[in-house]
C-alpha cells in the first residue's frame, strides 16, 4: 500500500515555508512540510549556564565555524555543521554561507528588523537604468505587508518616507535617550532622515510560535523534521513536478512523497541548490545567477558620547538617503542605510592602552559608546552565481554549491561614502570618533543572501513569474529570498513573508 498524494508539499519551515503553511492550511488545504533539520524542544534543548562553565570560556571551540561569525559558544549547536555540509569557493573570493537547519529555520535567530521595500526597488531599473525591474510593484505587495506586520507584531514609527513606506505597526512611543536625541538633531541639521527601529516584538518572533501553531490547529498541516530533500521529481509525460525524494537525516534511509504542488522555501541558496540538483525550472539558464546580498560595514564608526547622561542606551535607523531623488547624485548607484546604537562600553581594541591605564579608561567611558553599522544595496549581477560542484557532497551524498561572486567598485564607493557621512554626523552631534573604517564583511556574512532564482516578466531572463511560480512548471513555487530581483538596503525577511503570503494566495486560487 502506498501513501496518498499530498495536496501541497512545502520544503522548509522558516519565514517563507511557515507563511505558506499558515495561509494554505487555514484555507482548508492539506500541507506536508519537510524540514532538513530537527525540531527544537525548548524545555529539553536549552539551559542556563555560566560562561566560565563552558569549555572555552565563551571563546568557542577554535575552527568549528570558519564562516559563521554569528556563532558563539552558547548557541553553537544551533548552526549548521560546516564539515557535514561543505561548499566550495575561489579562495580569493570567499562566501560565508550561514545556515540553520531546524524547524523554524533562521526565524529562530534573526535580527527582527522589518522594513518594507518601495518602488525605488521594485522599479529600480526605471530610475537609474541598472538591472531589471521586478514584475510586481509596491501596490501589489502592500496589502500583504499590511497583513504580515500585525502577525509579527512589528513595532515602529511611521514617518511618511518615500523610500521606506509606512507600515501597519504597533506604535513605538518610547523616549529617546539623551545621546540618541542629540544624534537625531544632528541628522536633521544635515538633512538625513532618521527614525526608530522597526522590529518584530515578543519573547520569540519565529515561524515556530507565530505561524506553524495556527497551521497545525487546523488539522491540515503535517510537519516532518529531519527530512533532507535530495530531489524534486517530475512526471515525464506532463513535465509537472509530482513529488520529492528525501533522506532521513539520522539513518540516510531514502523515502519519496507524492505531491500535486511543490512549494520550495528551503532558504535562498538551498532552494536553488535543490532545483539545480533536480535539473528543473531552468529553461532560462539564469537559475543560480544574480546572487546578491547586502554589504555590512560593522561599526563603520565607533564614537564616544563625552558627556553622556542617564538614561543611557537607545538606538535608531537611518533609511536610504543617497540617490533617493530623481537623479543619481553620487559616484555609485543605489544607497545604504545605517543602524545606530548608544550606550555600553566600546571594545577595548579602540584604545591604544593596556594594563591599569586601559582599565581606568574603560571605567571612564562606561555607557558612553555610540556606534553605527552600514547596510548597503548590492547590485544583482548575472556573473555572481552558484553552480553545482559534483565533487563536493554533503554527509548525505547530495552535491553542494560552488560560489563565484565578488563585490565591485559600486559597493566599495558606497562603503567609503557611508564611512565619511557617519563621521560627519557624529561630529555634528559632538561625539568623539575613536574608530572608522569602510571594510565590509565577506559576501554572505550578512545572512541576507538573495537572488539566484529570480522572478521576472520574461521567462527568457527569469525563473519565476510575479507569483513566485516557475515559468516552466506551473505546480512549482519558490517562495524565499532567492526570488528577489533586487534588495535595497532593507532587511529582507518582511518582504519574504509578504511574497510567500501572496504566492500562497495565488496557489490556493488555482485548480490543481
Amino acid at each position, binding site marked *: 500500500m502506498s501513501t496518498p498524494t499530498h495536496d501541497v508539499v512545502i520544503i522548509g519551515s522558516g519565514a517563507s515555508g511557515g507563511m505558506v503553511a499558515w495561509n494554505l492550511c487555514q484555507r482548508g488545504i492539506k500541507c506536508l512540510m519537510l524540514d532538513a533539520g*530537527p525540531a527544537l524542544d525548548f524545555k529539553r534543548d*536549552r539551559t542556563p*549556564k555560566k560562561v*566560565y562553565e563552558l569549555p572555552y*570560556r565563551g571563546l568557542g571551540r577554535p575552527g568549528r565555524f570558519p564562516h559563521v561569525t554569528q556563532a558563539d559558544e552558547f548557541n553553537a*549547536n544551533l548552526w549548521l555543521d560546516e564539515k557535514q555540509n561543505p561548499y566550495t569557493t575561489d579562495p580569493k573570493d570567499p562566501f560565508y554561507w550561514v545556515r540553520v537547519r531546524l524547524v523554524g529555520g533562521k526565524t529562530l535567530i534573526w535580527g527582527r528588523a522589518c522594513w518594507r521595500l518601495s518602488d525605488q526597488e521594485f522599479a529600480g531599473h526605471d530610475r537609474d537604468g541598472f538591472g531589471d525591474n521586478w514584475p510586481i510593484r509596491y501596490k501589489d505587495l502592500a496589502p500583504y505587508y499590511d497583513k504580515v506586520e500585525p502577525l509579527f507584531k512589528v513595532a515602529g514609527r511611521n514617518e511618511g518616507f518615500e523610500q521606506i513606506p509606512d507600515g501597519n505597526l504597533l506604535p513605538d512611543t518610547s523616549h529617546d535617550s539623551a545621546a540618541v536625541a542629540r544624534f537625531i538633531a544632528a541628522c536633521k541639521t544635515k538633512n538625513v532622515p532618521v527614525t526608530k527601529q522597526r522590529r518584530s516584538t515578543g519573547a520569540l518572533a519565529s515561524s515556530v510560535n507565530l505561524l506553524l501553531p495556527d497551521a497545525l490547529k487546523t488539522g491540515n498541516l503535517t510537519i516532518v523534521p529531519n527530512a533532507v530533500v535530495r530531489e524534486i521529481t517530475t512526471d515525464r509525460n506532463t513535465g509537472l513536478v509530482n513529488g520529492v525524494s528525501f533522506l532521513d537525516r539520522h539513518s540516510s534511509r531514502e523515502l519519496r512523497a507524492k505531491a500535486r504542488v511543490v512549494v520550495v522555501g528551503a532558504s535562498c541558496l538551498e532552494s536553488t541548490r535543490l532545483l539545480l540538483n533536480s535539473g528543473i525550472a531552468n529553461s532560462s539558464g539564469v537559475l543560480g545567477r544574480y546572487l546578491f546580498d547586502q554589504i555590512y560595514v560593522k561599526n563603520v564608526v565607533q564614537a564616544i558620547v563625552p558627556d553622556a547622561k542617564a538614561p543611557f542606551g537607545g538606538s535608531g535607523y537611518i533609511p536610504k538617503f543617497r540617490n533617493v531623488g530623481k537623479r543619481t547624485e553620487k559616484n555609485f548607484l543605489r544607497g545604504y542605510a545605517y543602524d545606530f546604537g548608544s550606550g555600553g562600553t566600546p571594545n577595548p581594541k579602540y584604545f*591604544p592602552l593596556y594594563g*591599569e591605564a586601559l582599565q581606568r579608561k574603560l571605567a571612564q567611558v562606561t555607557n558612553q559608546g555610540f556606534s553605527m553599522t552600514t547596510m548597503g544595496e548590492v547590485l544583482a549581477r548575472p556573473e555572481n552565481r552558484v553552480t553545482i560542484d559534483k565533487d563536493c557532497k554533503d554527509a548525505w551524498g547530495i552535491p553542494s554549491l560552488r560560489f563565484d561572486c565578488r563585490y565591485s567598485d559600486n559597493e566599495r564607493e558606497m562603503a567609503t561614502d557611508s564611512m565619511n557621512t557617519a563621521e560627519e554626523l557624529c561630529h555634528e552631534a559632538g561625539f568623539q570618533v575613536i574608530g572608522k*573604517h569602510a571594510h565590509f564583511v565577506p559576501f554572505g556574512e550578512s545572512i541576507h543572501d538573495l537572488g539566484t532564482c529570480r522572478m521576472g516578466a520574461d521567462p527568457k531572463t527569469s525563473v519565476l513569474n510575479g507569483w513566485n511560480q516557475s515559468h516552466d512548471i506551473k505546480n512549482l513555487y519558490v517562495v524565499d529570498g532567492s526570488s528577489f530581483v533586487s534588495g535595497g538596503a532593507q532587511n529582507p525577511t518582511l518582504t519574504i513573508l509578504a511574497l510567500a503570503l501572496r504566492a500562497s494566495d495565488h496557489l490556493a486560487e488555482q485548480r490543481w
Partner: protein
Amino acid sequence: MKRRDLLKTAAALPVLASAQQNPVLPRPTAARKEEDPRLDSETSDAIADPIPSFFTAKQFAALEKLCDTMLPRVGETPGALDTRVPEFLDFLISRSGADQQKLYRDGLNHALDLAPLSEPWTYEEPRDPYAKFLQQAKHDILTAAVNSREWIAAVAKRNPAVTGTGTYWLPVE
C-alpha cells in the same frame, strides 16, 4: 554543595569526626511520589589546577609576564594571573589552527615590548607580526579574564546584574 561551603564545614569539624559516624541507612517508608534526583556538582576548574602543556617553559613564563602587564590586579578586581588566563590560553592555543599557534609562539619568543599597543588603533591589520600578536593577545587575555568565575564574582559585588549567565543550547536531536 559548593566548594566554599564544603571547606567551611570541613574546617569546623575535628578531622576524624566524620569518619567515626556511621552512614544513615534509609528506613522503610510507605510508597510516595518520588522526584527525579538532581545532584549539585562542581566544575573541574574549581577543584583542580590545569596542567599547561603547549608552550615551552620559557614561552609560558613570557605569557605570564605579558598577561600580568596587560591586565594586572587592580584593587578588588582580579587580574589575568588571578583568573588563570595563561593556563587557559595555553589550552586554547593548543586547540587552535597552525597560523594562530605560530603567531603566539613567535610573539612569546619576542622580547616583551608593549609599545605597539600605544599606537592609535586602526582597522588595518598591522604589518608587523609582533604588533599583530599583541592585538590578538590583548583581545584573548581580556576576554578570557572577563569571562572567568573570579572576575564575574568581583564585578557582581559592585553590579548584581552581572551574573555571567547565558542561554546554552544543547546539541539538538
